[in-house]
């Protein structure tokens, strides 16, 4: 809501309080003033001039040479390029030395050989937004009414010597969508009275009820409908002061009838609609829900299909307006209109909201109805409107109104105790202080011992319960006056859950290992949503996505991390290691929430080690990423419990991918991205992993128990085995570990040879075995016994031959 500081003064006395001070006070007591705009800021030297003569420029087709009286001794010559400039007009002239928006200084100039002493201005050139300029002046200069005095300050005449407060209204404060509403708020803050307009208009002998009959079928949607009839209207421009106020409030002037309805909308917060009575096609107004499939062409020339959810004003037969949202083209006021049917109605929010949403139509009227207008303001607003129509559109107001009144709204009566007020706020207010606050708000209040009972005017529909009253007290008492305390009461232990703690450990571990945490979007494209899914399930789709790229929820984090790599590679960041923890979403039965699983994913590419001047560089490979994961599993107490086994997955390198299993359950995978995917995305060799974090963190880990430091030496034996090339090292290791019995403490691969000295299809793989007994020093005999078992086992189970 844009509030003109000068206009506001018609309703409330703000003497001694500047616009900026007022903004600060309003902000502090509840409505954020988002800005104070000084309309003529930085502008000067613009006066009203009278075009005495206007002829074609001798040397330029599109220019005019004018002689303009500026109210000084001598008229001046001005060259003007506007198509609509004409002799006799009163215009805004930026004189020599004037300053226009953008610090544009007007100087004496010669245009195609002719002297020009200033500039005749359009409203846009005076800093008024183009969308607020009335259509007739939108392509040229602005023309003042004939009776405008020459020589006076044109900016002041245009109402620009004013400041506008921009209120950022929250939905509960729809009462401030009007000048009177703001006046009540300011009155409460400054402790001043509110002055209402006192409309007076003479009425003609004819009665409105002889012209129109009003019936409301949809009584819940429309509890009150007030119709007035005005004859002999002369449609023309509205007075300049009204136009300038509309522009300052962000509304474009049209003609006197439309402008007056808009003016009342701003002044009273009551939307009005003017029908061309003669075009109604009947003498009847019937308000009802639309019939399924019924149609209306609205003022914006759009044909709209209606449903039973929509409320329409009809002429008893067909719709003439989409109630509270927009009028129909068939009954629109035009320049020929002579008789106007004025509607001032109270529509309830939901029906209007639905229509506005379904048709994508938001008007000043619908915005107010949706948020709730004062149910009791329709009559007063109608009286004020006909006064203005009589005065500024030459209308004759017919006697009386025609109403359909099913209004039941009564002021809310709410009680609260002083004790409750103070205990919620933490304040020590007295009853008289509280009473004073309600009297400033112009709420009726009565006190009975410790209880205050407040009668809330219908304009403040947001106040219905005692907490609402407490808020009114708190905000006008001032939050600056509320003390700072901390909750007292039973102390509660603050902590992270075990899961949350472990998740932090996972993050720290991966970061320590060199990975950066990324956070990417959950929404993705149809193509990417299912890629790399750990479990194939249908992705969850949005009902109405904003774009194809963000239309489904991800089933895997990897595609997003690959995008991160791609983005960085394109920017010369070529050695990358990132990880992310976040949810993936699996579709469930219709009506159920999708299953959300927290996953851990990572991606690495480029150089893993790079110590340039020493010439040490290592490229990432499978074993780099596997090492990180093994380290992580060990950190989580799962050393040796997660199995890596060769696996094939869509989008992954068929020979360089492993599935991770924990307790027989697949919990993730790791490997190289398929080279065709790498190529398609302009990636270099890239390794990724994705793991179900929940499976990982909720796996039972052993309790930490100290193992005594060995007192006896261990003995190491190395063996090199020749096996088929296909034989997995992990399998051999498993066989060795099992056969070695309890004396075998450690097995690890220390060499691998697949070179030309090997027989075709064979490889040599060397293991180091460490034997140890905590109770004694092992003898050669003990070790040989255990070691022979190992050798037999690998021979029998894996066809391994000891390499000579």
């Amino acid at each position: 809501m844009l509030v003109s500081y000068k206009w506001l003064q018609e309703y409330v006395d703000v003497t001694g309080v500047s616009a900026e001070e007022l903004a600060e006070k309003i902000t502090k007591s509840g409505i954020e003033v988002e800005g104070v705009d000084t309309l003529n800021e930085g502008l000067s030297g613009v006066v009203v001039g009278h075009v005495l003569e206007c002829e074609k420029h001798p040397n330029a087709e599109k220019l005019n040479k004018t002689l303009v009286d500026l109210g000084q001794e001598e008229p001046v010559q001005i060259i003007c390029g506007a198509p609509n400039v004409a002799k006799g007009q009163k215009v805004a002239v930026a004189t020599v030395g004037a300053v226009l928006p953008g610090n544009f200084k007007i100087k004496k100039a010669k245009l195609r050989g002719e002297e020009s002493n200033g500039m005749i201005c359009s409203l846009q050139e005076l800093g008024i937004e183009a969308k607020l300029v009335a259509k007739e002046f939108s392509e040229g200069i602005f023309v003042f009414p004939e009776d405008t005095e020459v020589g006076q300050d044109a900016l002041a005449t245009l109402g620009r010597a004013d400041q506008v407060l921009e209120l950022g209204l929250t939905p509960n404060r729809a009462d401030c969508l009007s000048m009177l509403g703001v006046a009540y708020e300011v009155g409460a803050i400054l402790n001043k009275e509110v002055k209402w307009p006192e409309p007076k208009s003479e009425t003609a002998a004819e009665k409105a009820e002889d012209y129109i009959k009003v019936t409301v079928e949809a009584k819940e949607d429309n509890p009150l409908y007030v119709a007035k009839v005005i004859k002999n209207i002369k449609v023309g421009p509205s007075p300049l002061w009204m136009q300038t106020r509309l522009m300052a409030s962000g509304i474009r002037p049209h003609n006197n009838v439309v402008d007056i309805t808009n003016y009342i909308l701003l002044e009273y917060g009551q939307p009005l609609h003017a029908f061309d009575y003669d075009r109604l096609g009947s003498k009847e107004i019937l308000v009802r829900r639309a019939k399924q499939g019924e149609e209306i062409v609205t003022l914006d020339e759009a044909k709209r299909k209606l449903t039973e959810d929509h409320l329409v004003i009809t002429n008893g037969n067909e719709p003439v307006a989409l109630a509270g949202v927009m009028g129909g083209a068939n009954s629109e006021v035009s320049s020929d209109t002579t008789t106007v049917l004025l509607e001032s109605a109270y529509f309830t929010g939901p029906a209007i909201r639905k229509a506005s949403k379904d048709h994508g139509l938001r008007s000043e009227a619908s915005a107010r109805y949706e948020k709730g207008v004062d149910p009791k303001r329709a009559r007063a607003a109608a009286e004020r409107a006909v006064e203005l129509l009589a005065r500024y559109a030459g209308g004759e107001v017919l006697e009386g109104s025609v109403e359909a009144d099913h209004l039941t709204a009564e002021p809310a009566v709410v009680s609260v105790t002083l004790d409750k007020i103070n205990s919620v706020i933490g304040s020590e207010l007295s009853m008289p202080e509280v009473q004073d606050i309600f009297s400033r708000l112009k709420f009726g209040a009565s006190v009975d011992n410790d209880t205050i009972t407040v009668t809330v005017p219908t304009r403040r529909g947001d106040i219905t319960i005692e907490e609402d009253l407490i808020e009114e007290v708190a905000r006008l008492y001032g939050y600056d006056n509320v003390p700072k305390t901390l909750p007292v009461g039973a102390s509660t232990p603050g902590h992270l859950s075990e899961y949350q703690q472990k998740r932090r450990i996972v993050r720290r571990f991966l970061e320590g290992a060199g990975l950066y945490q990324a956070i990417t979007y959950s929404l993705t494209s149809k193509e990417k949503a299912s890629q790399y899914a750990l479990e194939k399930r249908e992705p969850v789709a949005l009902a109405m996505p904003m774009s194809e790229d963000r239309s489904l929820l991800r089933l895997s984090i990897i595609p997003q991390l690959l995008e991160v790599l791609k983005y960085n590679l394109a920017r010369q960041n070529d050695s990358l290691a990132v990880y992310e923890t976040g949810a993936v979403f699996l579709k469930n039965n219709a009506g159920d929430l999708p299953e959300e699983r927290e996953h851990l994913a990572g991606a690495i590419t480029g150089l893993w080690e790079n110590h340039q001047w020493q010439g040490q560089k290592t490229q990432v490979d499978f074993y780099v990423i596997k090492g990180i994961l093994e380290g992580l599993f060990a950190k989580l107490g799962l050393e040796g419990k997660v199995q890596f086994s060769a696996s094939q997955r869509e989008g992954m390198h068929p020979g360089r991918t492993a599935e991770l299993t924990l307790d027989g359950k697949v919990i993730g995978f790791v490997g190289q991205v398929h080279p065709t995917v790498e190529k398609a995305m302009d990636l270099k060799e890239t390794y990724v992993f994705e793991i179900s974090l929940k499976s990982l963190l909720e796996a039972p880990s052993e309790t930490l128990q100290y193992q005594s430091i060995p007192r006896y030496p261990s003995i190491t034996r190395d063996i090199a085995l020749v096996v088929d090339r296909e034989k997995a090292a992990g399998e051999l290791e498993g066989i060795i570990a099992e056969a070695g019995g309890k004396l075998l403490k450690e097995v690890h691969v220390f060499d691998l040879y697949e070179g030309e000295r090997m027989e075709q299809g064979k490889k040599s793989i060397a293991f180091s075995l460490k034997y140890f007994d905590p109770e004694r020093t092992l003898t050669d005999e003990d070790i040989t016994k255990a070691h022979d078992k190992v050798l037999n086992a690998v021979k029998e189970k894996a066809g391994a031959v000891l390499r000579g």
Partner: protein
Amino acid sequence: MQERLKELQAEALDKIAQAADLKELNDIRVAFLGKKGPITEVLKGMGKLSAEERPKMGALANEVRDAISSQIEARQTELEAAAVELKLAAEKIDVTLPGRPVKAGNHHPLTRIIEEIEDLFIGMGYTVAEGPEVEQDYYNFEALNLPKGHPARDMQDSFYITEEILLRTHTSPVQARTMEKRQGKGPVKIICPGKVYRRDNDDATHSHQFTQIEGLVIDENIRLSDLKGTLDVFAKKMFGADREIRLRPSFFPFTEPSVEMDISCKMCGGHGCSTCKGTGWIEILGAGMVHPNVLEMAGYDSKRYTGFAFGMGPERIAMLKYGIDDIRHFYTNDIRFLKQFSVTE
């Protein structure tokens, strides 16, 4: 004889002092102290001396021998040290060459902010509650006093999956779920971080996905002043002990009264500058006393229990704290951006 010994000593000491290396020194040792050396020679002539002089001369000879050998030792230490010095001098490296880099990643800046806030509130007795990102309309709106058709639903245009299921628009549903789980019992003290989603076109100040962190306290006798005090502690820890807070009335359907909290502007110290748009204050978060409808819907007796809630955006806080100018940076994950947040403050 005595003179001969003195002469030998002087000669030996002189040579020792001039010895250039360990070998030369060893030669001197052999020459003077060896079995065929001059001192042995001298001592061989002891037989000729009287019984009185013999012990005297013996003592003198030992003195000379000791003097020479201790001098040799001293010189040896000296020469050894010099040899080591020489060797080390040859081993000299350029200490200004860069070291071998240690691999280290770091937290995303949003995680950094969120963990900092979590830890601060954990210290004040809060636990961390989490909930689903895809929510039921009921928990996201209705349980928070936003019935269907409520105008405030417009404030948070949402991504719906079905009519009843949507991507949560705030982390408040976690509060609703937690309260419901607690079955009307206090005290509740939780902090709820997480991702949220709104129908916004991504630009420098809007993101369709962003994070929130909310707090909720429910107990008997919780006052607005407790909220103010708690937020004051938070603001001073997070932004600096010299920052002031101010509460302004506002509106949220789930709180009544509702407030917004501003902190005094760091750039201008509250005098007004371009960062704070001349107001001296910067908006940080929304808060309020839990609306009785919200309490009642979750099974709390609103006559007995009161509570406060607050919610903020880690993006906004990070942007203010670190001077980040575009919200999209958080989700682009440019490594040059991420790397900047590894420093301990």
